[in-house]
């Protein structure tokens, strides 16, 4: 295999979990935790997989290591398909591809000296010569900066950072080619994080280790990784070199992640922008672009002359009606039996919709829908909103477009937006 061939190549990886209900445990749907992702990772390279909690990044890690069988897609490691491995080959794969977790406490039994825990993988893989074991453990402890003399101590005698080093020593027992690190530093203090990351860097250089670094922390990823894949609700929405992607995000979701990071400058407080709304249910992901329910620059309907920001507010109102989130009678009661006019204003205010939309047709459509809502006909209101205020982002799945440095899946990059 040439140097350019990836060590790890993941194509259209899927992991769906059945949702079971009732006495007969019938399958009523599927949580699409990972829904068709591609990844490539070369030797000595660090690829970040970033996204909010619940976006599927940890599930992706476990399924590409075949710790959980994928629902679909293919994982190739060093040129061979992991799905077709027999037991022996799978065993070999498990030595060469290791997983490092966020919480080192989960990796250590409090009643077993840490040296024995570090040696544990050798039991599973049948290394029984005591001298060889001791030698290996001592060597790996030294590599991670732990004094081998302390191997007979117990986990509680070590700090959080030291325990993460010990977990790393254990992952390195068989000199793996691939390390999948799932939020390996998130539970640690900043200074300890920095030291663990610099240790990982050293080990990577020395052993040509490939690292898949799973994280929600953009600052850490920028510091430590070469390339990044941004994940949202089971899909990858943007990828490319880390600095280029975060300097000039091409997908609105990446932009939102970057915008939410505080500046570390008290003079510029308040600049960080939250991303509104919740991560939708992966059992029922939004149609079209999955990010359209939260996207700040969702594409407005061609029929109206309204900007993306205004359209976002109307779409939020529409989604609230669809989710049955608006109880007009309750609102009326709260406002002391206010007039319909007051209620209209209150509803617009709640969703940030302007008093009057600049486009006359849009305003008429919205007013009609609000009238239906106030008359108690939610169904009609929803139909009016869904007919008038619709977006290509919800109708069509975006294609993945090339960007100057990578790729992004967003309708804003379509050559002529297909309204």
């Amino acid at each position, binding site marked *: 295999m040439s140097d350019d061939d990836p060590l790890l190549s993941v194509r259209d990886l899927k992991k769906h979990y059945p949702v079971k209900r009732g006495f007969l445990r019938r399958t009523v749907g599927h949580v699409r935790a990972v829904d068709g992702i591609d990844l490539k990772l070369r030797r000595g390279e660090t690829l970040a997989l970033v996204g*909010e*909690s619940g976006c599927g990044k940890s599930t992706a890690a476990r399924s590409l290591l075949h710790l959980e069988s994928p629902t679909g897609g293919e994982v190739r490691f060093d040129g061979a398909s992991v799905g077709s491995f027999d037991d022996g080959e799978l065993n070999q794969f498990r030595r060469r591809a290791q997983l490092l977790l966020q919480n080192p406490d989960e990796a250590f039994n409090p009643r077993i000296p840490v040296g024995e825990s570090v040696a544990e993988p050798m039991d599973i893989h049948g290394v029984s010569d005591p001298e060889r074991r001791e030698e290996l453990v001592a060597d790996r402890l030294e590599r991670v*900066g732990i004094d081998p003399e302390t191997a007979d101590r117990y986990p509680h005698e*070590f*700090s*959080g*950072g*030291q325990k993460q*080093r010990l977990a790393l020593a254990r992952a390195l027992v068989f000199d793996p080619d691939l390390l999948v690190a799932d939020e390996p530093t998130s539970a640690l*203090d*900043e*200074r*300890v*994080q*920095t*030291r663990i*990351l*610099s240790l990982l860097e050293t080990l990577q250089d020395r052993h040509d280790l490939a690292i898949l670094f799973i994280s*929600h*922390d*953009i*600052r850490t990823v920028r*510091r430590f990784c070469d390339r990044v894949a941004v994940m949202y609700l089971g899909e990858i929405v943007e990828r490319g070199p880390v600095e280029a992607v975060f300097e000039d995000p091409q997908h609105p979701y990446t932009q*939102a*992640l970057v915008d*939410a*990071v*505080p*500046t*570390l*400058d*008290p*003079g510029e*407080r*308040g600049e*960080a*922008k*939250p*991303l*509104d709304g*919740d*991560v939708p249910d992966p059992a029922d992901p939004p149609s079209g672009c999955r990010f359209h329910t939260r996207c700040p620059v969702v594409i407005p309907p061609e029929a109206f002359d309204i900007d993306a920001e205004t359209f976002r507010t109307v779409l939020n109102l529409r989604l*609230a009606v669809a989710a049955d*989130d*608006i*109880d007009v009678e*309750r*609102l009326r009661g*709260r406002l002391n039996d206010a007039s319909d006019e007051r209620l209209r204003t209150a509803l617009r205010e*709640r*969703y940030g919709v302007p008093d009057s939309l600049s486009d006359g047709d849009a305003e008429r459509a919205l007013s009609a829908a609000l009238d239906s809502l106030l008359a108690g006909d939610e169904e009609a209101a929803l139909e009016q909103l869904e007919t008038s205020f619709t977006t290509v982002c919800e109708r069509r799945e975006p294609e993945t477009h090339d960007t100057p440095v990578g790729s992004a899946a967003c309708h804003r990059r379509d050559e002529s937006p297909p309204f």
Partner: protein
Amino acid sequence: MTLLSVEGLRVEFPTDEGPVEAVDGVDFTVDRGEVVCLVGETGSGKTAACEALTRIADGAAVDGSVRFDGRELTDCDDRTLRSVRGDRIAHVFQQPGTSLDPVYSVGDQIIEAIRLHDDASRNEARARAVSLLEDVGIAAPAERIDAYPHQLSGGMRQRVAIAVALAADPDLLVADEPTTALDVTLQAGLLELLRELSAERDLAVLLVTHDLGVVAELADRVVVLYGGRVMERGGVETLFERPAHPYTRLLFESLRGTADGSDDRPTPADDGCPFRSECPYAVPDCAEGRPSFHAADDEPAHEVACVFYGPDYDIGTLGGEGS
């Protein structure tokens, strides 16, 4: 006006190997409407210090003085303390689950907190609960009030926990890593909320965090803790521009990716500077008694507990302006 004044606070926890000193003589104050951040790493004593204010941690031995609105809290009996805790000082924790009960609707929990505080009728309390939910940024509060905690996202649960904390209209909100368990996309919104609440309600906030990003967004003043002691304190802008203590400087440097220091932190049991075993500049004097506070620069409120700022040393030895 000073609302809370903490002097010589000590907190000890009993362990199998004898008592462990988590907080070792800490002083700080919080004014009305002000946000003060206690910044520190694991083991710095920041959580123990704020839990000691109203003695919410079991088994901790607390010593020193905690004066709140003119009253000494360390002398109070449990009943008085409970009423201060409910009415005047409210706590918010890292995991919103800590303060929310999964079997009651969020409305019931806020209503109960309101009615514990004053004898509002159920209907009045309910109306106030709705408006509290609105204040903490819950969309459609009248609809969400009957939801159970598990039906809400993590970010919304933390907002509800803040609403419960505000139900009794407290003077001081003690928030321990309130955004740490949240995604960064939600963090910014919650920090904005805390900023608004503090300004609009003249609410004093004591915020405990390890995250300098959170400090930059929220703090008026900063107290840096290490090994149970105050290393440095000052206004947020000064402290970010000119971190003075070698420890504070290391904190800022690690954000830029420099990886000095070690993972084991032996805290000497003596009176010397607890940071000296990690400090790149340590001199024998660092082991000689508790370092006193010195002016770090021209800012009167910027103080640092480090011998290098004393009369016998030249600050230039520490090199540069930090960051």
